């Protein structure tokens, strides 16, 4: 009797290891609880959906994917523990996470373990400036937006440009970035200054700006001030186009400015998931809606799906699960991979190169319309 039991046990163990050897384990670190729980739960649903799709199609080079999920609680301390647990489970790579500070707490642990980390919502510049070989991200860096602003202003054919920020480190950083690029290109910056947030009356600033006679105004601050600027601009009968940064992407902007004043306002922002229009994205959105009967809340969660797809592509192309080979492939060979959120390539620092930001325009009835 004991022998049979032992045999059975041994068989089970063998079967267990045999199955384990057949799967490729990929980690997911996401804020399933805490302040960003909605993002984290979306991330989990997206990654699991895509892993199922890959497995249904026969896996990667015949091997199935297994997702190992850990909750980081949106909190750096919890994230460090989650990272330590994930590092010991023989994973190929870890997808996530959302917040920059949370990612920062886990970066070193993964790097020491030689584990690839593909963050999806952490946009702080410093994360990829530390020379960590195994760190990558599918989201843009904070300075990417400056480049996009520069392109949008250049493509608009504007000759003299006014730039206005609000002295917050984010808004000033974006304004400086765009200004440097525009000046290098010989554009004429006729106005560059900051307003005081939370004031109600910006007419003195608008009057001064109007006197500088710009073709376009680029405002890098938040939606509250942007709404008031638009409203007071209309009262002055000044019809200059306004371009905003992604902090103006909030429906309250239209409420504050009024539909009439907000119409024609353009802003830069990563696309909302409903506006992702590639073939892959539309197939993904349909599948997601079918499985979960909802839509993902933000583009940041969808970027975790891109993280998984990029890693899967690298494993498929190299035929290996060796981290160094995979990183080298993603940084050097992966070129314009058709992601859910547009074309994906990575530079040597592991940052995503390529277009994510889009230009939105407020329509006459106050809707945010994606511009082609």
């Amino acid at each position, binding site marked *: 009797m004991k022998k049979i039991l032992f045999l059975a046990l041994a068989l089970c163990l063998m079967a267990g290891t045999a199955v384990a050897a057949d799967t490729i384990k990929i980690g997911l670190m996401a804020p399933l609880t805490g302040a960003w729980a909605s993002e984290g739960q979306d991330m989990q649903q997206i990654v699991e959906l895509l892993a199922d799709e890959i497995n249904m199609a026969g896996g990667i080079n015949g091997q199935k994917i297994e997702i190992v999920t850990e909750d980081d609680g949106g909190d750096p301390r919890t994230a460090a523990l989650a990272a330590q647990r994930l590092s010991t489970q023989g994973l190929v790579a870890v997808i996530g996470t959302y917040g920059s500070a949370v990612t920062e707490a886990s970066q070193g642990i993964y790097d020491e373990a030689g584990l690839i980390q593909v963050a999806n919502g952490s946009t702080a510049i410093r994360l990829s400036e530390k020379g960590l070989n195994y760190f990558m991200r599918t989201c843009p860096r904070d300075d990417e937006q400056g480049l996009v602003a520069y392109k949008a202003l250049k493509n608009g054919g504007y000759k003299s440009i006014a730039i206005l920020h609000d*002295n917050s480190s984010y808004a000033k950083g974006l304004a400086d970035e765009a200004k440097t690029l525009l000046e290098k290109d010989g554009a004429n910056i006729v106005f560059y*200054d*900051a*307003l*005081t947030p*939370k*004031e*109600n*009356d910006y*007419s*003195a*600033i608008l*009057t*001064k700006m109007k*006197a500088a006679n710009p073709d376009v105004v680029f405002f890098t601050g938040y939606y*509250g001030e942007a*709404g*008031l600027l638009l*409203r007071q601009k209309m*009262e*002055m*009968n000044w019809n200059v186009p306004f371009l905003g940064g992604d902090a103006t992407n909030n429906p*309250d902007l239209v*409420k*504050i400015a*009024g539909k009439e004043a907000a119409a024609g306002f353009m802003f830069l922002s990563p696309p909302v998931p409903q506006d992702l229009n590639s073939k892959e994205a539309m197939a993904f959105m349909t599948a997601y809606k079918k499985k979960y009967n909802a839509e993902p809340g933000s583009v940041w969660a969808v970027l975790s799906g891109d993280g998984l797809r990029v890693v899967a592509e690298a494993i498929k192309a190299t035929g290996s699960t060796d981290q160094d080979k995979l990183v080298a492939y993603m940084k050097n060979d992966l070129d314009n991979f058709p992601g859910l959120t547009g074309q994906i390539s990575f530079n040597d620092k592991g940052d995503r190169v390529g277009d994510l930001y889009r230009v939105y325009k407020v329509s006459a009835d106050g809707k945010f319309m994606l511009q082609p």
Partner: protein
Amino acid sequence: MELFIQQLTNGLAVGGIYALIALGYTMVYGVLKLINFAHGDLFTIGAYLGLTLLTTLGLTNYLGPFGVVIVLALMVMGLVAIVGAALERVAYRPLRQSHRLSAVVSALGASIFFQNAVMLIYGARYKVYPHDILPRTAIHIFGLDIPLIRLLMLLTSIVMMIGLYLFIQRTKIGTAIRAAAIDQGAAKLMGINVDRVIMIVFLIGPALGGAAGLMVGLYYGQINFTMGWLYGLKAFTAAILGGIGNIPGAMVGGLLLGVIEAMGAAYISIAWKDAIAFCVLIIILIVRPTGLLGERVAEKI
């Protein structure tokens, strides 16, 4: 020149609001020698009450735009005056005999209480007044487009300030307020009910602050629960600039501060406009420590 006049009107419109709020600071200081730090929040309450009344009562169905504004202003002023009087009764009167600092701490506490109460009742997001209350026409003078409402705002502030000045100077209650400001003990001996005088001061000051809040809401549209802090700080500065405790001083100080800010923004730098305004304040205080009109009028208020 056009730019100068445009900036002058911008500055005067903002300055009018500062002046209205500054009156509340200066009246309370004149009588009680107390800086009422909760005054900025009474201004916020005025803005929020105005929004609530406007959206719930449906006044626009019965009255024209200016009728709505007048009825609304009277209601808001009345309600905020009651809040002000209650504030005095609860937070300041029990401390009347204690050290002056205790009352200042009580004022700060009241300010925090009001700010958080507004946030909890109305939420932390921006609130927006309906857009179609006031006509958005602009007047064309000197080759400039000046919004009509901006001029009306300035006009209303000035009319209210003159009304208050006449009330203080010409009426019996006004005389009692002035008497209490000079010497509370002597005023009591003359048969003046000083507690009632203080109550009246706390009705008038908050009413004007509430009216300013309503004006800001109606014109700029956007209000939030922290707005009282910034306006309160500026108005307090304006009151000191003109000579605190002095009513014409608060008016002059408010309008001047608005114009200095606009001119600083126009001709020096926008980012530095607050710094410029405060530099001017420091210079004025070095030259005239009692403020611009602090000495010209012998008695305070």
